């Protein structure tokens, strides 16, 4: 690659303008966070913003979630293809999973940005809704056989504003069909506001630097990003990898949903090819990937494996090819199959199958698997609030945490949640949740010995419990990692199983099915034991001092330290002076190794 040759723009402007675009996206994000009304936006931060070029290439994605940002480009391309009269002042609403959106609960606002009469960029804000009009009070419909049973209002590139005025017909329609309409409308305003802020700032930027220079910048920035990924791919070994995994059994797939990927890593050509075509057909339930999700989750697995410092935009995307086929559960969904759960669950599995394939092939690369799914700890809850004259409420609550996978150098991230959000989302405050909704959270605590042990260990899972304060509530949840655990790699152990449970009013604790819409009555507590992440490498190679720290953290018991990590302490008592007994540890480790053969 020639690197410095044929540069059209001075290197200073490249640094300046890339920074300015990132600042614009962060300003959009801040607007959405501070003005959003539902907890899933203003607490959990389940939204993303981006700037896309007029010809629909992703330029800048701020702190957006992995599952949201890759594919904003495809969505924009498809939406603008529908309209030949796009003009300044327009805003489009889209949540169509057959048209490039992720899943129907992600309402996306696209604002075309005009400068000097030309459509130059598009400001995009995507926000997960507290409700999207599904036939049941949840934004994830696992059992929906098709889009009709799913029931969400689907907007296919709908012009929701012309000349900056709402299409009030659509607003009225949404107010009739989306639960807690004031909450939806507040979130709509917040999302629209974020896109409009982006529009204003981009116009200012173009006026300040001139359209020509900004356009030149865009091409240079893509070239720069391409150089970065070329460099990253060239540092990988060459190989044809294969990854296989499976989501737990679900409606329409009683044995689970297998996920397969073939990966071609070609450092000489500096390309990575992902082939997802050898997967089963669409399933008659909500677990189908949308096209955008299939692509972005496979690519997330790649970015997790080549280093996160490579810019993620249309420039670096040039070097990754994803092959999909039509009517495929991880491919292009055939209408009217439902994609209601496209952003989690199978999506998490897809990310992890890819990163695990890298780890399986080469030590020092890829990652283990982490927790996945949306169990009771992150259920969508609904009911009525007697504190406010029985007003209805609905929202996805994210009070717990699920364990992240180990990498070759770093232990798993504790508040990881799942592969598609990778710890970027925020956790709810117990007090804020209890103030907003008539619930009582009973506990949130780390689950000891739930980590996938390894040279680097997965993060532990947690035990989360909550119930209603006054009247019954309904909780919709979809556990994954109940049957097929988060797998360790290269001798690292699996994370523990994720389970749903309920403490009854009489104190008994029973196990619940992994996928359910559960009524929780006063006096009852809905509980999840979340998975820990899988480990990376042999636990007997873990530095004993790290095991000691884990014991003091309450992550690992003395018994597990001995039996799994082969670490002995001078005295097994939880105290600041806890010390590893080195010779006994070496002896024990030798014995455990010998016992394996």
């Amino acid at each position, binding site marked *: 690659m020639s*690197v*410095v040759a044929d540069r059209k723009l001075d*290197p*200073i402007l490249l*640094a*300046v303008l*890339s920074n300015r675009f990132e*600042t614009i996206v*962060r300003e959009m994000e*801040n*607007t959405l966070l*501070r003005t959003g*009304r*539902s907890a899933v936006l203003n*607490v959990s*931060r389940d939204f993303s913003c981006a700037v896309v070029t007029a010809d629909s290439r992703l330029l800048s994605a701020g*702190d957006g979630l992995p599952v949201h*940002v890759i594919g904003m480009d495809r969505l924009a391309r498809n939406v603008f293809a529908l309209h030949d009269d796009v003009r300044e002042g327009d805003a489009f609403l889209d949540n169509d999973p057959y048209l490039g959106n992720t899943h129907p609960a992600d309402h996306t606002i696209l604002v075309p940005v005009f400068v000097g009469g030309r459509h130059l960029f598009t400001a995009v804000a995507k926000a997960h809704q507290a409700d999207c009009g599904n036939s049941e009070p949840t934004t994830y419909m696992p059992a929906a056989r098709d889009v009709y049973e799913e029931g969400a209002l689907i907007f296919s590139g709908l012009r929701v504003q012309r000349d900056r005025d709402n299409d009030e017909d659509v607003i009225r329609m949404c107010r009739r069909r989306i639960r807690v309409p004031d909450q939806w409308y507040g979130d709509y305003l917040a999302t629209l*506001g974020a896109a409009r802020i982006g529009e204003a*700032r981009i116009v200012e930027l173009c006026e300040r630097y001139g359209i020509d220079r900004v356009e030149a910048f865009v091409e240079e920035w893509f070239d*720069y990003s391409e*150089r970065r990924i070329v*460099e990253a791919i060239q540092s990988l070994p060459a190989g044809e990898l294969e990854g296989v995994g499976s989501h737990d059994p679900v409606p329409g797939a009683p044995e689970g949903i297998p996920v397969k990927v073939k990966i071609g890593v070609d450092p000489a050509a500096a390309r990575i090819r992902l082939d997802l075509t050898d997967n089963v057909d669409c399933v008659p339930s909500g677990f189908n990937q949308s096209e955008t999700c299939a692509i972005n989750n496979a690519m*997330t697995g790649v970015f997790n494996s080549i*280093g*996160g410092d490579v810019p*993620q935009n249309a420039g670096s995307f040039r070097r990754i090819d994803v092959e999909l086929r039509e009517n495929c559960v991880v491919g292009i969904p055939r209408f009217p199959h439902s994609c209601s759960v496209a952003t989690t669950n199978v999506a998490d599995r897809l990310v992890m199958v890819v990163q695990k394939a890298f780890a399986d092939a080469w030590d020092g690369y890829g*990652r283990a698997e982490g927790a996945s799914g949306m169990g009771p700890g992150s259920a969508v809850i609904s009911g009525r609030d007697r504190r406010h004259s029985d007003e209805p409420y609905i929202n996805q609550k994210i009070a717990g*945490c699920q364990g992240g996978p180990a*990498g070759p150098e770093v232990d*798993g*991230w*504790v*508040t990881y949640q799942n592969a598609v959000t*990778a*710890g*970027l*989302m*925020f*956790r709810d*405050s*117990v*007090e*804020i949740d*209890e103030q*907003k909704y008539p619930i*009582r*959270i*009973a506990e*949130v*605590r*780390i689950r000891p010995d739930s980590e996938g042990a390894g040279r680097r260990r997965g993060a532990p899972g*947690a035990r989360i419990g909550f119930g209603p*304060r006054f009247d019954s509530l309904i909780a919709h949840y979809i556990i994954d990692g109940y049957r097929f655990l988060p797998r360790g790699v290269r001798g690292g152990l699996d994370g523990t199983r994720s389970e749903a449970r309920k403490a009854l009013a009489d104190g008994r604790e029973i196990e619940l099915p992994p996928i359910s819409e559960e009524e929780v009555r006063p006096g009852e507590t809905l509980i999840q034991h979340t998975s820990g992440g899988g480990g990376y490498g042999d636990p007997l190679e873990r530095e004993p001092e790290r095991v000691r720290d884990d014991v*003091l*953290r*309450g992550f690992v018991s003395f018994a597990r330290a001995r039996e799994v990590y082969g670490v002995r302490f001078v005295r097994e008592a*939880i*105290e*600041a002076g806890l010390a590893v007994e080195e010779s006994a540890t070496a002896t024990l480790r030798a014995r455990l190794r010998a016992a394996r053969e």
Partner: protein
Amino acid sequence: LTGDRKNRYRIAIDIGGTFTDVVVSDGGEMHVGKGVTRRERAFPAILEGLEAAEPPLPVGASQCLAAADLITYGTTRAVNAIVEGRTARTAFFTTAGFPDTLLLREGGKRGRFTQIEYGDPYVPRYLTFEIEERVDADGTVFRPLEEASVLDAIERVGAAECDAVGVCLIWSVVNPRHELRIGELLEEGLPGVPYTLSHRLNPIVREYRRASATVIDASLKRLMQAHLRQLEQDVRAAGFEGQLLVTTSFGGSWPAEEAIERPIYSVGSGPSMAPRAGIAYAKAELGLEDREANLLVCDTGGTTFDVSLVREGEIQQAAETWIGNRSTGHITGTRSVHVESIGAGGGSIAWIDAGDLLRVGPSSAGADPGPACYGRGGSEPTVTDAAVALGHLDPGRFLGGRIRLDAARAREALAAKVAAPLGLDLDAAAEAVMVVATTQIVGAIREITIAQGIDPREMVLVAGGGAAGINAVPIARELGCERILLPRTAGAFSAVGALYAELISEFAATSYAETRSFDRAAVNDVLDLLTAEAERFLARLDGLATSDAGVQFSVDARYPGQVWDIPVPLPTPRFERGDDVEALERAFHAAHRRRFAVEEPGRHVECLTWKARAVASPVRSQLASPPIDARREPVVQSAYFPQFGRASVPVVDGASLAPGRRIAGPAIVSEPTTTVVLYPSSTATAGRHGSYLIEVGSGGRR
């Protein structure tokens, strides 16, 4: 001033990690000195600073102390103790079920695809004790306090030899009964062991923030008590008979006893003084009234560029301050002056990444080895090196001549690490480093101004800190600020701010109320309670305050469904009539529109935390006029400016400039603790009180 008061001194001290800044005002002149910070004791560095003051004090250090009526003291000691792990071994008492609050924090990892190590909790899990109790959101007791669980925890705390206890129970801010009872049991069971109750320290909703504040505070109590008592002893022994005040993260100061009681408020107190200094200079030099002061206050040091905001005379506050990185460090949880720290100080390192993009920071050469031009073994090019290569710093007079800069080393480092890989000549490479650093700073400033509905073009940029003058002009131009105020004492900016710090204490109580069903009597009870606390604080000031002491009220409020509240000043100190509630609603709509560009008129407002802020001004000293030494002649130095090229430009000694003198760029004004780089078409005018007022001009753009 009466003849009697004329010889009374006021002393402000800012203890930093390396240097201790001392500023003395005698009502006429301001004397600034530096001493070398000692780890264990503050006093030796203070003495050094007094002895080294410029211009020299007319009396010796101990006479000065004996003749001083006020010392305002700021220190980074609390923060350093936390970072270095030298705080007390602290236990955490939490509601049963929530032992991992400090571990889990609030999520929000940065970096989509990068793996980073998770941060340990402030208090280790084995010193965390679950207390059997539970209060609900409305304050009703769901599960009564089981005292046996407290007594058991107390016994184990004693056995584990903890020196402090932080207590934070769920919903204690609504019903503090259980926390108060635990306080009694701690007094009995662990007499003399300092403890902090969360509802008293920081009554905010959000258990992680409150718990974090509580345990940090408890862990600092013994240390700060010993430190401040030692200081008090030392200055008393030297003959000081006046009042000792300690600066706070509020941007004010309070008596030493209060700081010992709530030491968390000394965390971040140094940087919080910068906007105070900014206001003092803006008022003196620009003749601004309080309400007219809209300032962007910069304080540039070796590793960071700190920015804070003053809006209509009010220093902007923030609720989120982290020790360490966001989401892996520890939140202080207390409202404090909003200081945005950007990793683009003088020591920030410039490098080329794998795609040939020029980057600046976040790595810093620090003070040791420091930039390449320090000649102490540093080989990486820094922002300071770029300034030296461009001819923007006078190598012989940097930091008052304390460090002689080696321009050849700066050029070497830039040539090897920036110019060659980018195929640029040396001047273009150095310019590129300055531009990239400036862009990062401008981006961060835009985030805290425009994103909050503040237009930087309406603000005056106050450039404090030793390195601020290097790129103040391009920063201002890029932001659209027309004017810069650069104080000569920029190098001791926080200490100057401390001299002007008001006596401030804030009291808060959480009491949920909605404007659509407003219980005026209940809210008034809360406000009465806060008023009483605020007045008790003012009464304790012991005659220090002037007659304009007062109490301001505000409430943190939001629209239904929102969870991020914004502070709104109360239009009336009590709610006597329905009209008063409507006035509050209107004030909220306006505040929301100002910040987020939208409002929802007709919608009711949720009120959460009520606050009373007691403010009193100490007797003010005047900013003095510095002596002029017109004999100092300018020298000439070769310097490079973008779109202008290389030229011989004058380097003017600041001490030679009489008030009103104008210097037109390109030029460099050299001061003992700072340097002013005047880009072409900018001009600087010497002010009456030792500052430079810079008109930035167009610079060929805009």
